């Protein structure tokens, strides 16, 4: 998965119409709520074979942080 695909998946999880880039701060996304965090947790753990917790997801600041963790 490359960065473009990652962001596309992330936008699907958020169900947002906002423009999301790797620099986007998560706290600035209106839809970045517990539902999105859970969806992101499920996505990262499955597609990148990680064992993150909900607490780990809450510690990310930007989309880039997530991509780094996923090795994208």
């Amino acid at each position, binding site marked *: 998965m490359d960065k473009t695909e990652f962001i596309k998946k992330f936008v699907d999880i958020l*169900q947002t119409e906002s423009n999301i880039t790797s620099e986007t701060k998560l706290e600035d996304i209106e*839809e970045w709520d*517990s*539902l999105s*965090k*859970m*969806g992101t*947790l*499920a996505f990262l*753990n*499955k597609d990148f074979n990680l*064992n993150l*917790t*909900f*607490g780990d*997801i*809450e510690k990310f600041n930007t989309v880039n942080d997530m991509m780094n963790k996923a090795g994208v």
Partner: protein
Amino acid sequence: MAKVKFNNVKISALSAVVGDICINIDDEKQYYATEKQLLRLKKSIGFNTRYVVNKDVTTYDLCLQAIKELFNKTGLTSDDFDAIISITQTPDYKMPGNAHLIHGELGFKKDCIAIDLELGCSSFIYGLFQAFMLCEKFAKRVLLLNGDTLSKIINIKNRADAPIFGDCGCATVIERDEKASDSYFILKSDGSGSKLMYQKAGGFRNPSNEETKKEKINELGNTYCDEDFYMSGGDVFTFTLTEQPPILKELLEFSHNSIDDIDYFIFHQANKFIVESIANNLNLPIGKVPVSNFSKYGNQSGASIISAICSELQNNFSDKEVILQGFGIGLSWGACYLKTNQVTVLPIQIYKKEG
């Protein structure tokens, strides 16, 4: 390890009764900031309708009606049972438990033992496990009761939990049958998570008083008091995603099955998002995973698997290879593989007040 194979025991009948008050999420728009937010929750979590009880109706009432309907349909009577197991977190009294109340109400014989247990969303699997053990040792037939009325211990203004839970009481018959296929169970517990879901006050550690009844508002704007049911949603989701896929894989291996061999994977119907997340993690075929029970009735705690069978697989539950899997408070979780045969499945019933 609680990894057990049973021979000669089967489920023979299932009955589920839901609360008689139907709440539609569209009638609760006032609790949501925007229409868009509510739409998103409806789409992802599956919010739609849920059935709850009135103040004067209890889990006991729901289970009693489930038993009566089941007796009517099957012709069984109280004399046909050697044990009753009730599992609920919302009993009529702190003591004695509902199994004993039902035993008295329906005149079960003295040789039929009553057992009261306390568990939530895993209670059907744990109850089946107990019932199968009793059948293997002495009982010809066991009546298992699962149910909860969690709507009574959640403030309607607590939007994290109130729109999730529905009320339901069920009755299941488990019996010895020499021709029954082998069944496989795996159960697990993790008490280190005991406070991820709990009711802080109202027991003997923090007895009920004015302070524990006082309404408070948490950082997310949800109203609650210390006597209400509490759930740490994010942590519970982590638990679900961490522990549910592995136990299912372990069960497939233990029962010598592959995903293709199984007709239905029936998970605790926590909500649409959670069931789909587990199914997606395991790459289960969508058609094999019932998921719409939550949108009709809400999360019915330990009754949800039975409700899903009664509402979605009513005429399609016999001669099937199924995996049932429950997970929740405790933390506690378990799964079983069953090959069903001649199961009487009653359609979902809505509670009717007697008289």
